[in-house]
């Protein structure tokens, strides 16, 4: 039954899409940032790569509203068709991809945008006066505008492209941190931070004499925000926290944390790697000083991430890396630096990847982040409740309840079976892709008293059937290893 619905829905999409009179108007982000390309040819070729997501949101809602019989088709069923990679067999089983917190898959729209860039207007940016270069520059800068609009930054110059979130955090640590932190200054983090948010600050603390202070978990197995509040003082110079935990699935109240931090004159860097892809994030509402995310976790290409920084902060920060792009004038003994964001983008950037990220943002916006978030909350609950049925399982992080939402991921262990053995068997025998290990959160694992855990993480293109397949496969895995003992 679902497969017929799916087919129905897909064919509806195929037939609807070409008939749309004007795709551009229907995309929320394209009206605010219409392609700034100067020729008709360029703007149409840019849009060509972006067409699919628009048709998607329209066809999805058209199908829903127009035909009550298909009203039960989930967002996962509708969007799966946009991800060619999901439709394959792995080790003889249908692939069930549940490693989205590590990286997401890419929809056709993004693949097309990349291909189109390399086929039609690959050129270096900001330096050539020729046609292709100006077209590539426009598209690259348009991608920056899309990112800015996506997180509601007030200007696109507040967006610095980096190669990933890790580089963005390093940028803040080395540029802002090294020039600001003094001995005895404090950096407040939680033990649930990803290594990429811990290690750069360790390196900078070693150089500056600043002190790192870590907030533990509370009894609900979420970072203890009361303790965090108490830890803040005039010594605190920056608070570095995740928005959504990649292991605990917990969500931190960033707005409150920012208020508390600003009260003592501290800045806040938000690691939004696991929130920006899954919910509407508004940097102005949060009032965050810095915020980072990675393109590859939000349907975009690898090799691309971004730093949002408040304009006045970025303007006062020294460069991180030196080279082309980031200078104003170079003399033999010194140079003057370009304004942000160029100051922080030394060398030829990842142009195609930035454009690909722009296409991913169009795709996500075409669906609507609120819709994605609501669907994922439903999936999160379904995943958690069904996983609990597995014998001897321990799921980490807060128990979902009325006011505690979890992200759509579960890290867990099953008694006496190594998570890597579980992940290996799930892959080999069932084609289910999950992660095993410490998920770059060793301090957190140590705190929880384990060396490793398994993690299943979902995205909007997953379905409840994926969860069912996974839980069934996990039960089989557990009985396999149990019978071996």
């Amino acid at each position: 039954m679902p497969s017929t619905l799916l087919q129905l829905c897909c064919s509806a999409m195929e037939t609807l899409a070409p008939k749309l009179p004007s795709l551009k108007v229907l995309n929320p982000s394209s009206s605010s940032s219409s392609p700034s390309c100067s020729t008709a040819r360029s703007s149409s070729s840019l849009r060509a790569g972006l067409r699919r997501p628009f048709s998607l949101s329209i066809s999805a809602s058209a199908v829903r509203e127009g035909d009550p019989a298909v009203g039960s088709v989930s967002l996962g069923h509708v969007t799966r068709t946009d991800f060619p990679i999901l439709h394959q067999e792995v080790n003889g089983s249908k692939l069930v991809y549940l490693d989205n917190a590590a990286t997401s898959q890419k929809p056709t729209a993004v693949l097309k945008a990349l291909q189109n860039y390399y086929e039609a207007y690959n050129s270096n940016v900001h330096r050539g006066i020729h046609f292709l270069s100006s077209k590539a520059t426009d598209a690259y800068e348009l991608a920056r505008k899309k990112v800015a609009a996506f997180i509601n930054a007030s200007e696109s110059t507040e967006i610095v492209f980096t190669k990933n979130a890790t580089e963005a955090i390093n940028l803040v640590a080395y540029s802002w941190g090294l020039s600001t932190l003094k001995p005895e200054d404090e950096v407040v983090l939680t033990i649930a931070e990803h290594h990429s948010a811990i290690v750069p600050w360790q390196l900078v603390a070693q150089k500056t004499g600043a002190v790192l202070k870590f907030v533990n978990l509370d009894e609900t197995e979420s970072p203890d925000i009361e303790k965090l509040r108490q830890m803040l003082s005039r010594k605190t110079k920056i608070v570095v926290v995740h928005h959504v935990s990649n292991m605990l699935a917990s969500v931190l109240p960033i707005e409150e944390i920012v208020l508390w931090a600003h009260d003592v004159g501290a800045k806040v860097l938000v690691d939004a790697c696991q929130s920006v892809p899954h919910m509407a994030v508004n940097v102005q509402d949060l009032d965050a000083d810095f915020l980072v995310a990675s393109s590859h976790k939000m349907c975009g290409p690898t090799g691309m991430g971004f730093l949002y920084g408040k304009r006045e902060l970025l303007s006062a920060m020294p460069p991180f890396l030196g080279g082309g792009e980031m200078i104003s004038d170079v003399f033999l003994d010194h140079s003057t630096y370009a304004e942000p964001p160029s100051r922080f983008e030394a060398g030829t950037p990842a142009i195609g990847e930035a454009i690909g990220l722009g296409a991913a943002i169009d795709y996500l916006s075409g669906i609507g982040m609120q819709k994605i978030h609501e669907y994922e909350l439903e999936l999160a609950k379904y995943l958690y409740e069904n996983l609990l049925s597995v014998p001897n399982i321990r799921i980490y992080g807060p128990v979902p309840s009325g006011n505690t939402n979890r992200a759509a991921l579960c890290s867990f262990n099953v008694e006496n079976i190594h998570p890597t053995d579980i992940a290996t068997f799930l892959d080999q025998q069932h084609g289910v892709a999950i992660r095993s290990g410490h998920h770059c959160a060793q301090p957190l694992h140590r705190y929880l008293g384990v060396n490793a855990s398994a993690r299943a993480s979902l995205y909007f293109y997953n379905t409840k059937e994926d969860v069912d397949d996974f839980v069934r496969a996990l039960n089989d895995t557990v009985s396999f290893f149990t019978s071996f003992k």
Partner: protein
Amino acid sequence: MISSPFIPRVPLSSSSSSSSSSSSGPVMLPYLSNYPRPKRNDFKSRNLAFMPLKCIHNSRFDSSSESDARLPSFSASCLTATEATLASSDLVADRLRRVVAEFRSLPEPIDRVKRLLHYAALLSPLGDSARAPENRVTGCTTQVWVEAELDKLGRVRFRADSDSEISKGFCSCLIYMLDGAEPEEVVKVKSEDLADLNVGLHGKAHSRVNTWHNVLIAMQKRTTALLAGSE
């Protein structure tokens, strides 16, 4: 069965017949049966020094019992002491070939996993003291410990353990291949040679989660260090 102080700790499948075939069932390889027996006093000295281990008794199993690896006691594919030999230079390459052939003969992933679990069960656990941080193999998503020492004949003796059964299976196979080999032979093995053993890790010879690769490298590093120390 001749009783001998030498009991191979990690025997791989053996069979009375040396003809391996591509028939449907798992192909059992005549592991060491064709190899010259070691001189008795050779292994006496060595194994007294380094072999506490659980006795794996011989069973000339047939392939049907072996294929049900859920019953390790039945399938324990053990070598008799008479068949056993210690690895020497040409044996490493040969054992490697045989292990590769054995895993290749198992087209079903579940059978490869079962085989690994079977070999894991044959590996005697390390004591808590050997599960020390300095013995940890870095880079694995599981915890793996490797210990190495040179015996009186200057050959490398390995012991290994893991908190994961599958990793333990990898260790078991590596020990089968390398334990008792000349240091030069140990160092010579390339991780690409293990590519076919990549149960669960197809074609990721350089992946940071590739336990085969990481354990092999660890064994080679320990060997190099032992050599440097003994000079």
